[in-house]
């Protein structure tokens, strides 16, 4: 009984932190808790949240993926390239996402079959994918995308008054939450992160599961890249640099253990919201962008320290 109570508290800790920040910001700025601003925050958060969802799976298996920002850039550029050559927008988006999944699969194969530590493997592919983006774009933005309304909708549109990126984020969240909680695949992700050896001896094909996990992360990063491309109406070769850090921060803020096997994706959503609200609130308060970084880092540090206290 007692144990599940503390477990519950631990799970709800991030949510509590989020509400504290929201309340403080509401008092400090009149423009914060307004419908318009909430929608802005949701749209901003969606990019990081999508990447962080994938990162949650990776981290649950005990891995890490540093290449998400580069995957985002390369898939965005490829999609933009296809669009500017006149391809059907729907097809271009699907191919762009598959390209991201393929990049993720490549990470997964290097990690499992090549037995390279995830940190090293994705550090290398981070550079490779970024380099490929620069080669492909020749270092210049790709503009002149299609005039297709449906493509513009992805990043700029609204559905029932809600920004489409936020809708996509919510749908992705619901699907991924279900996968982790209710499917064999989700269970395998947790068990591999908890004890890979025991999982293999229980008949789980750990390599395959991991390749799927990295592919999923690649797919989600690509979706984020496509949203960004649509919003900017162009593909920027240097977009997404250091995005992996915000994603990892969101996962950690959400209470998922970096050593794998423990955590949940709802926490990651809250973590991404905390980061998004902080960014937005500090902007509203006219805090200099230099100082914003100090605040963000401090919040992450505090959150993790409090988590350590609770588990100790």
């Amino acid at each position, binding site marked *: 009984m007692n144990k599940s109570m503390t477990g519950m508290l631990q799970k709800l800790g991030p949510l509590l932190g989020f509400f504290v920040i929201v309340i403080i910001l509401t008092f400090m700025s009149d423009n914060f808790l307004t419908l318009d601003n909430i929608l802005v925050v949701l749209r901003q958060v969606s990019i990081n949240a999508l990447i962080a969802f994938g990162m949650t799976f990776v981290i649950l298996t005990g891995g890490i993926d540093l290449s998400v920002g580069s995957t985002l850039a390369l898939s965005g550029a490829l999609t933009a390239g296809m669009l500017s050559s006149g391809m059907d927008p729907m097809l271009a988006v699907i191919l762009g996402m598959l390209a991201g999944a393929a990049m993720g699969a490549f990470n997964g194969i290097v990690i499992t079959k090549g037995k390279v530590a995830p940190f090293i493997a994705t550090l290398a592919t981070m550079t490779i994918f970024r380099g490929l983006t620069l080669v492909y774009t020749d270092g210049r933005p790709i503009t002149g995308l299609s005039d297709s309304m449906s493509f513009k909708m992805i990043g700029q549109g609204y559905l029932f008054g809600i920004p489409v990126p936020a809708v996509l984020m919510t749908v992705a969240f619901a699907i991924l939450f279900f996968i982790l909680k209710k499917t*064999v695949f989700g269970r395998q992700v947790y068990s591999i992160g908890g004890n890979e*050896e025991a999982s293999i*001896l229980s008949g*789980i094909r750990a390599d395959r599961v991991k390749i799927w996990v990295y592919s999923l992360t690649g797919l989600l990063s690509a979706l984020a890249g496509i949203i960004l491309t649509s919003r900017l109406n162009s593909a920027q070769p240097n977009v997404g640099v250091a995005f992996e850090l915000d994603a990892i921060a969101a996962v950690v803020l959400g209470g998922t253990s970096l050593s794998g096997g*423990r955590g949940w994706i709802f926490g990651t959503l809250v973590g991404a919201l905390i980061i998004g609200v902080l960014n937005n609130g500090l902007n509203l308060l006219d805090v200099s962008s230099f100082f914003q970084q100090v605040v963000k880092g401090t919040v992450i540090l505090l959150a993790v320290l409090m988590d350590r206290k609770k588990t100790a």
Partner: protein
Amino acid sequence: MTVQPIVEMNHIHKSFVGNKVLKDVHFDVKPGEIHALMGENGAGKSTMMKILTGIHKRDQGTVSVNGKEVAFSNPKEAEKAGIAVIHQELNIIPYLTVAQNMFLGKELKYGKTGVLKTKEMQQKTRERLQRLGIDMDPDEEAGQLSVGKQQMVEIARAISTNAEVLVMDEPTAALTDREIEALFKVIRQLRDQGVGIVYISHRMEEIFSLCNRISVLRDGEYIGTKYSNETSFEEIVKMMVGRELGQRFPDRTSEIGDTKLEVKSLSRDGWFEDVSFSVRKGEILGVAGLMGAGRTEIMEALFGSRKTSNGQVFLDGQHLKIKHPKDSIEAGIGFITEDRKSEGLVLNLSIRENMALPMLSNLSNYGVLSNKSEQELVESLMSRLQVKATGPDQEVKSLSGGNQQKVVIGKWLGIEPKVLILDEPTRGVDIGAKKEIYHIMNELTERGVSIIMVSSELPEVLGMSDRILVIHEGKVATTLSREEADQEKIMQAATGQAAMGGNRG
């Protein structure tokens, strides 16, 4: 008999959050004796030792060293007073040398400069090891040594502070027979030098051959102390479990049928060679051999978690293609590994999640898990095995060793195996739980399951097996029937003294 004890603990009481774990417990150690502290898991042995060494504070009672009452607040103080502990898990840093490990935290320095006296430490390390009759290079990396030798380093380090009392917690758990012999020699030598030794172990044979006195705890209570030459195995067990345990091994009653599993010339270069054997329906095949003979490796190869270069496996006459544990599990082979924490369980998952692990595909439709069938399966397994837990959602980390082992067994009963491989099934499990495990094995064979049991405990092999396969250096040395097998024949075959016992079966 009137020798003054070095350490005396009287009327010790201790509670953890209202839970009484020690109730009026007495214990003492005299110089030059080996005193066994026995009891089932959770009886309070480790808590007693933790109170002695200052890790826990006692609620009531007295602890005195050489007649003076003490209250250590940490192990360092206890060490200064001459009480050293060898823990079950070794505290050796693998990348440091023997000498560096020996002086860890107590390095010899030039004054207060922090500059190390390397030569002197090497010299002293060599001297200390030689005093124990051990020949070892002080410059060797500790991680390169066998577990037995690492333990020697730790013992040498522990007694280097002129320890008068040495506490050893399950020191032989990971040692080979030869290493155990060497360890016992050292322990006896220390005893003759007047060191008082507290020896904690589950292995009865060891205790009786080594110890002068045996003290027994049960559920935090002091049951009594006996001289080992005036008591018996049965009496000590009765003291530990509080009731007659009856026979140590249940009678084998299952009906043995036709050949179930057949392994033909399984080989892997450098590990094992041309290993062939078979198990029949309802039979227990014991697999004996020295540690490092390749028994576990052969089982892993059969199960698919280790690659083979050659060989075939037949189940019910059908050739199995096993490339991954998944293949053997689907064919109906289960594998209860030796090390349940690192290979058997996902410690931070629940009983439910662990038990369901090998059969997730059977508990799901199109990849979506069915809560209902999972719950039903796990509840029936838990009651069948009498797992003591708050419920299926308890983390396995917080279960006792015996209950963890039951979860591992339950995990494999769920797949309704035709063949079950058990690798050291009762290691680190207390006597009561051991007996339950033997009963489960019997019950399974009665249902027609074939069991392969790898064990280093000869009494267990002799007591439970219908046939015994002896492995020596990666090869089958001999196969013995239950009737013809005895300790001597097994040991002779296991140590390579062939031409004994014949090659039947």
